[in-house]
C-alpha cells in the first residue's frame, strides 16, 4: 500500500509538470463526480425512454424547486449500459450520488467496501412504509437502499397470438406449457423469445427450475452455505435441457440481446414476432420503448406465473424476482438521501405507478397502477405468491453469478450438461 502511494505521488508530480509544460493545461475536465459542490446530486437511472425518462426529469425539477440550491444531474442510461458503468464506478469509487442497487451479494460487497451509505435512520419513515420488501437491501440489520419496485419474473404473452393458436387457458404446468408450444408452432408462430446473448435472461429458466425442483432446505444450503450437492440442481438442468430440446425459442436466440432494439427478446414480443417471453416486471415498459407508437403490446399483454414442475420438491407457488432500490453513495451530500426519500414518497410512487414504470413498493401507490397487466402482477406478488426468491445470480454476486450464467448460456448452445452447470457454479463458490 505504501508503495502505491509513493508511486501516486511521483505520477502526480509528473502530471503536474506535464500540465505546466503544455502551456497552462486548462482541460482537466470531468474529475468532478462525487465531490463536486455540496448541492449537486448525480443520479443514474435506467428509464431511458419515455414516459419514464420524462417523468424522472419532472421529478428532479420538482425536487430542485422544493430545495433551492440543489441541482440534480440525471444520466438516463440503457439498463445494460448502466450496469457496465456502475461496475466501473464502483471500482473507481466515483459512484453517482443516487443509483440503483439490486440487493444480494452485490450490495453486500459494496457495503463491505464502504461505498454505500447506511440510511437506516435518515430514511426511517420511508423504510417503515415500504415494509417487508426492504429486507433484501439490509445487511446486518442496517438498511442501505430503498426498493422502489419489486417484481416477479413470469411469462409475458401476447393474448391474441395465444387465441389464434387455440390456447384458451394460460399454462399452469410444464406439460401444459409444452402443449402450448406445440400449438403455437402448429399455427406458425415462434413460441418464446429469450435474450441468451445477455445470458441472464436464459439463466432465469434454470433458477426457476431449481426453485421448483429443490426443497427449501436444499435451496438454503445453496444460498447460505454455498452447497449445491443436492440432486435437485442437476434435475433443474435436465428440465431445462428438455425445454431447449423442444425448440421453443426464437431464431438466433444465442445472440439475441435482452432489451436493445426491435430484434431483441423484448422487441420480438413487442412487435408480435413471438408469443411469449420469460421476463420481469420491467417488460411492459421496455416494450413500450421499442414500438413506434409507444404502446408496446397494449391491450394484448398477458401474464402467467412460471408453471409448476411435476415431482418437484419446491413450492409451486413461490416466485422468483427481485427489484431495484435507490441507494445513496457513501460520500454523497445529505440532499442525496433526501432525494432518495422523495423518490419513495406517495407522490412520486403514485406517478411511477400511473406511468406503469414498475411495481411500486409504497402501499399508497398500489391502487394507482394504470397498466392492467402490471396491476395483475402486483396482485400476484402481494396476494398469491408464497414467497419471492431473489435471482440466484444477484444472490451469489457478480463472480459466482457470472460463472453460473455462463454455464447456463452454454447449455442453451448445447455445450453444457446439467452436471456442468452445477460443477461450474460449485467451483466458483468454492473459490470465493
Amino acid at each position, binding site marked *: *500500500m505504501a508503495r502505491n502511494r509513493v508511486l501516486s505521488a511521483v505520477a502526480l508530480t509528473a502530471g503536474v509538470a506535464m500540465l505546466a509544460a503544455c502551456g497552462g493545461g486548462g482541460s482537466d475536465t470531468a474529475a468532478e463526480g462525487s465531490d463536486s459542490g455540496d448541492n449537486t446530486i448525480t443520479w443514474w437511472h435506467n428509464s431511458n425512454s419515455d414516459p419514464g425518462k420524462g417523468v424522472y426529469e419532472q421529478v428532479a425539477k420538482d425536487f430542485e424547486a422544493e430545495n433551492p440550491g440543489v441541482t440534480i444531474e440525471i444520466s438516463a442510461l440503457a439498463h445494460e449500459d448502466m450496469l457496465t458503468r456502475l*461496475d466501473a464506478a464502483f471500482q473507481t469509487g466515483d459512484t453517482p450520488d443516487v443509483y440503483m442497487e439490486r440487493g444480494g451479494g452485490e450490495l453486500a*460487497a459494496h457495503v463491505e467496501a464502504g461505498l454505500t451509505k447506511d440510511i437506516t435512520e435518515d430514511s426511517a419513515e420511508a423504510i417503515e412504509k415500504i415494509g417487508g420488501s426492504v429486507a433484501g437491501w439490509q445487511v446486518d440489520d442496517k438498511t442501505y437502499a430503498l426498493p422502489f419496485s419489486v417484481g416477479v419474473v413470469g411469462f409475458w404473452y401476447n393474448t391474441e397470438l395465444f387465441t389464434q393458436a387455440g390456447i384458451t387457458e394460460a399454462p399452469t404446468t410444464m406439460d401444459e406449457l409444452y402443449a402450448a408450444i406445440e400449438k403455437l408452432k402448429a399455427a406458425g408462430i415462434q413460441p418464446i423469445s429469450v435474450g441468451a*446473448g445477455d445470458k441472464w435472461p436464459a439463466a432465469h429458466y434454470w433458477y426457476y427450475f431449481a426453485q421448483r425442483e429443490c426443497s427449501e432446505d436444499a435451496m438454503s444450503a445453496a444460498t447460505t452455505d454455498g452447497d449445491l450437492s443436492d440432486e435437485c440442481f442437476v434435475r433443474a438442468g435436465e428440465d431445462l435441457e428438455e425445454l431447449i430440446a423442444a425448440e421453443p425459442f426464437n*431464431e438466433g436466440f*444465442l*445472440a439475441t440481446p435482452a432489451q436493445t432494439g426491435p430484434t431483441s427478446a423484448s422487441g420480438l414480443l413487442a412487435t408480435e414476432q413471438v408469443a411469449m417471453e420469460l421476463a420481469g416486471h420491467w417488460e411492459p415498459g421496455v416494450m413500450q420503448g421499442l414500438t413506434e407508437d409507444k404502446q408496446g403490446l397494449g391491450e394484448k399483454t398477458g401474464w402467467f406465473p412460471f408453471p409448476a414442475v411435476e415431482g418437484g420438491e419446491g413450492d409451486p407457488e413461490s416466485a422468483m424476482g427481485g427489484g431495484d432500490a435507490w441507494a445513496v453513495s457513501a460520500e454523497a451530500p445529505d440532499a442525496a438521501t433526501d432525494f432518495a426519500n422523495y423518490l419513495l414518497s406517495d407522490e412520486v410512487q403514485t406517478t411511477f405507478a400511473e406511468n406503469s414504470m414498475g411495481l411500486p413498493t409504497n402501499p399508497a401507490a398500489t391502487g394507482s397502477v394504470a397498466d392492467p397487466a402490471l396491476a395483475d402482477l402486483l396482485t400476484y406478488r402481494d396476494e398469491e405468491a408464497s414467497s419471492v426468491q431473489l435471482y440466484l445470480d444477484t444472490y451469489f454476486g457478480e463472480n459466482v453469478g457470472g460463472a453460473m450464467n455462463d454455464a447456463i*448460456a452454454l447449455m442453451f448452445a448445447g455445450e453444457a450438461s446439467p452436471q456442468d452447470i452445477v460443477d461450474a457454479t460449485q467451483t466458483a463458490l468454492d473459490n470465493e
Partner: protein
Amino acid sequence: MADDLTARSTSTGAVAATPRDARAADLAPARSAAGAVGGQRRRRRSVSSNARKRLEIAFFVAPALALFVLFVVVPVVQAVRYSTYKWNGLGPMDDFVGLDNYTQALRDTVFTDAVMHNLIIIVLSIIIQLPLGLAIALLLNREIWGRTALRVIIFVPYVLAEVVAGVVWLMLLQPNGVIDAMFDAVGLGGLTQLWLGDPDVALGTVMVVLTWKYLGLAIILFLAGLQGVSADLYEAAQLDGASWWQVQRRITIPLLGPTIRTWGFLSIIGALQLFDMVWILTGGGPANSTMTMATYLINQGTNRSLYGYASAVAVILFVISLIIAALYQYLVLRRDNPQAPKPRKAKA
C-alpha cells in the same frame, strides 16, 4: 546525486570559461561519432563538457523516460505481480496464490479455445489476405484511370475506427438485414445464416469483417512496395519476351519480399491483440465461439473483478505474443537485414 551536483557546478564553470573551450568541447562528439564509423574512437574530453553533456542527455531523455517507466514499465511489472494474487480490486491485495491463476487459466477451456481462435485468425488472415491483397495490388499497379482515387478508397476501411466499422457491420448482419437481403436478391437466399448468432458461423463472419477492414492495408502496403521496384526491370523482362505472369512471379513478388514480411508482422501482432471488433460484433459469443484472449481478459478482469486472474491471462497473452514475435523475427524477418552493422533490436 553527488555526480549531478558536481556536474552542475562544473558546467556553469565551463560556460563562464572561454567560449572557445566550450566550442571545442562541442565539436568533440561530432568528430568522435564520425570516427566511430571508421572503427576508431577518440577520448579527449574535458570533465566539464562530459558533465554538461550528461545533463543535456538527461534533459532530453528524462520526460520520455519518466512517461515510459510510469505508464509502461510499472504497469507491466504490476501485471506480473497481480497475477500471483487472488484479488477483486476493492480490498487489500493479500491473498497470495502463487501460480494458481495460471494453472486455472490454462485449464479453462474457454481460455484455451480463445487462444485457438487468435491462432486461427492469424493463419486465416495471412491465407486470405496475402494472395488476395497481392493479386489486387499487382493488377492495380499500372496506369489506370482513377488510380489515385482508388488508392484512397481502398484505404477507407482501415482508417475507420474498429468500433465505428463494427457498429455498421452489426446492422448489416442482423437477421433479415441487408446481407440477407443481398443473398436473397442474387438467388442465394437459402445460404443465409445467423451470421453472428450461430456458434459454428460467427467466427467466420468475424473473419470476413476483419478481411474487409484490413485487406486495404495489405493492398496499400504492397502497392507502395511495388513503386520501389525499378521500372527498368520490367522493361528488360518485357524485351526478353517474358509474360506478365512470369514477370510478376520471377521479379516482382520476390522484390516485394520485405514489404510482405513487414505486413505479415503487423497482421500477426494485430490479430493477437484483437479486441474492439469482436467486442462490438459478438462480445465473444455466442457460446464463446468468438472469444479472443483480449475479450476473455476484459470479461474476467473488469466485468467479474477477478484482477489477479485477469492479470495472469494478460501475462500469458504477452508470452504467447513474444514467442510468436521471436519466431517470426528469427524465421522470417531475419532475411531482410542479414548483415546489419548494428545489433538488431527485437521488434514488435
